[in-house]
């Protein structure tokens, strides 16, 4: 891929300090994100997958500087944006948008759809008051809603329509980059397909770059250029969609893929799943070495001691696994 990196994430770390016990007498650290490295290429859809608590949403929040990074850099347009304060961040905020899972809790119930979509336009001075109405109509048309919706309130809309409004609101800022944080997870299947199509259309029309955070691998496989797999705060594997789904290298990726159901009864009845034993360990006290070693079917001695290096196993295919590294020539 010849595309330029739009954003470069280097050694990103996010720890949350929490207090435990009935009276908060014990201090502890949640290792939400540890030493995460990847690029996001201009115009691509990069998806992050993994199970709850693996740090995929934290990654999205941290690289938009919505969570303060504990360590590391996020380089965007030559600037490390995670060290900027709120004022210095403001011009970047316009270009970097986010769409959340539940549009009902992100839209103000007392604001009409028109006001909600118009607010960021006025804030960033992207249109005059006179132009505003037209601009809102254009945005609503972009997301497939008729202009009359501008005078409605969020409670009058269905879930799919509200998600369209949330997308229109993100688009209002004329962004370059949108984090879709489980943006379609709460929708019904038939509506989900509508929103996926919409996101793909808008990407083509406006040259958008998406970081798509999701747990539905069938959807991820459908829309992504590249896919990153996270486990317990670290990236386990990152590759193009074809590479990752056809030639997964990391044992966790393999287990994850084998759990995805296919809409084919004969195949489903005969398939042998690779069932992972046990649960994901607590991020309060993650295992030493490779974080997956406690559940890994091919764990070796070294896996419990040394953190596997994040390295390129095949062209453009990054993985962090001792077993894969050992199997490689050289």
């Amino acid at each position, binding site marked *: 891929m010849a595309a330029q990196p739009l954003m470069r994430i280097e050694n990103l770390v996010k720890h949350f300090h929490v207090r435990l016990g009935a009276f908060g007498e014990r201090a502890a650290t949640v290792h939400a994100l540890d030493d995460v490295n990847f690029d996001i290429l201009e115009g691509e859809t990069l998806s992050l997958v993994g199970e709850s608590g693996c740090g995929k949403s934290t990654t999205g929040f941290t690289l938009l500087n919505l969570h303060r990074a504990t360590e590391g850099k996020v380089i965007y347009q030559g600037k490390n944006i995670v060290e900027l304060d709120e004022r210095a961040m403001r011009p970047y905020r316009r270009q970097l948008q986010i769409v959340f899972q539940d549009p009902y809790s992100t839209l103000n119930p007392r604001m009409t759809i028109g006001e909600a979509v118009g607010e960021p336009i006025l804030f960033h001075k992207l249109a005059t008051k006179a132009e505003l109405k037209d601009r809102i109509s254009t945005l609503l048309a972009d997301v497939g809603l008729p202009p009359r919706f501008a005078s409605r309130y969020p409670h009058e809309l269905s879930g*799919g329509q509200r998600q369209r409004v949330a997308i229109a609101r993100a688009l209002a800022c004329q962004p370059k980059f949108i984090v879709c944080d489980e943006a379609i997870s709460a929708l019904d299947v038939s509506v989900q397909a509508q929103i996926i199509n919409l996101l793909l259309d808008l990407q083509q029309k406006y040259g958008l770059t998406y970081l798509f955070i999701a747990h539905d691998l069938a959807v991820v496989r*459908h829309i992504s250029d590249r896919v990153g797999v996270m486990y317990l705060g670290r990236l386990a594997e990152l590759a193009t*969609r074809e590479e990752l789904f056809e030639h997964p290298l990391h044992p966790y990726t393999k287990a994850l893929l084998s759990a995805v159901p296919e809409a084919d*009864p004969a195949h*489903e009845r*005969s398939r042998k799943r690779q069932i992972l034993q046990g649960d994901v360990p607590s991020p309060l006290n993650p295992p030493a070495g490779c974080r997956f070693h406690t559940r890994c079917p091919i764990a070796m001695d070294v896996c419990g001691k040394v953190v596997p290096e994040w390295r390129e196993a095949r062209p453009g295919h990054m993985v962090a696994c001792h077993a894969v590294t050992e199997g490689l020539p050289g």
Partner: protein
Amino acid sequence: MMMANDIRPVPSAASERLLDVKGLTIEIETRNGPATIVDGIDLHVGKGETLGIVGESGCGKSLTMLSMMRLLPNKIRVTKGEANFAGRDLQKMSNSELRKVRGGDVGFIFQDPMTSLNPVMRIGQQLAEPLIYHRGMSKAEARKRAGELLKLVGIPGAEDRLDAYPHELSGGMRQRVMIAIGLACNPQLLIADEPTTALDVTIQAQIVDLVKDLRDKLGMSVVWITHDLALIAGLVDRINVLYAGTVVEDAPVDALFSNPSHPYTQGLLASIPKLSDERSARLSSIGGTPPEPGRRPKGCPFAPRCPLAEAVCHERVPSLEGIGQNGAHRVACFVAQRKLEAA
């Protein structure tokens, strides 16, 4: 590995009906008067059969099951129809009779174990409760059986876990406890209402496999309610597709996937991304949204969104009619029924 399908004969549609729901109608009290949510639904489950009930939010799939056990929330009530379980109408039972059925012969697993489990009661006590109530076991017997049940659903260190509280377990473990409670009294019928929706995909696969194993071992009937067709493809014998409170298609699982006949079923299947899709190919989607209760269209409830709708579809409600030789595949659609007559 032996396939579950090879060792387990698929129960035929003609087998004895364990659950038989006829013309069940459920209404909700609104400011503008009563509105129909479930509209004269017919469905049945054979002995040893696993039925998948598929539909989107608000189609009435959960309410139908809750109504049978008279567990409906306030303002929602059954106005018509009957629900026969093992030959007796559940709607006509007295409360004390019904209590014997709930959790006894019919086990339930709900979506969210955190709200269904009692947070201040130990796991072991919650498991023992139905055993003492329904099966008249002593405390000691019930505790022993509770340990066995936890082992059955694959909880490591089962006996030590009996004294744990729900919050000490992970989501997947809590769901296993729910399943153990559902199975405690060896029910003839297990009703699982979206039991894996809140879980991660690897845990989801574990739970589906677990229920499949237990069903084969214990020979019970299962009703699995879900919105995810792919998830139950390898688990169920038959699928009922619900739309706006009616069954629009009823078919053996293979027939449903290979020959979906209702335009809504076709739309649902087409909107699932496939392995073979090109990246960014447009997914086929169903335009519009399901009707709200109280705003049901006059004819077929799917007609306003249906790409094949004709004049008659907006006028009359189609009934569920058999297509194919043995009538095991039924569909409620004028267009599909006519297509078959012509063929």
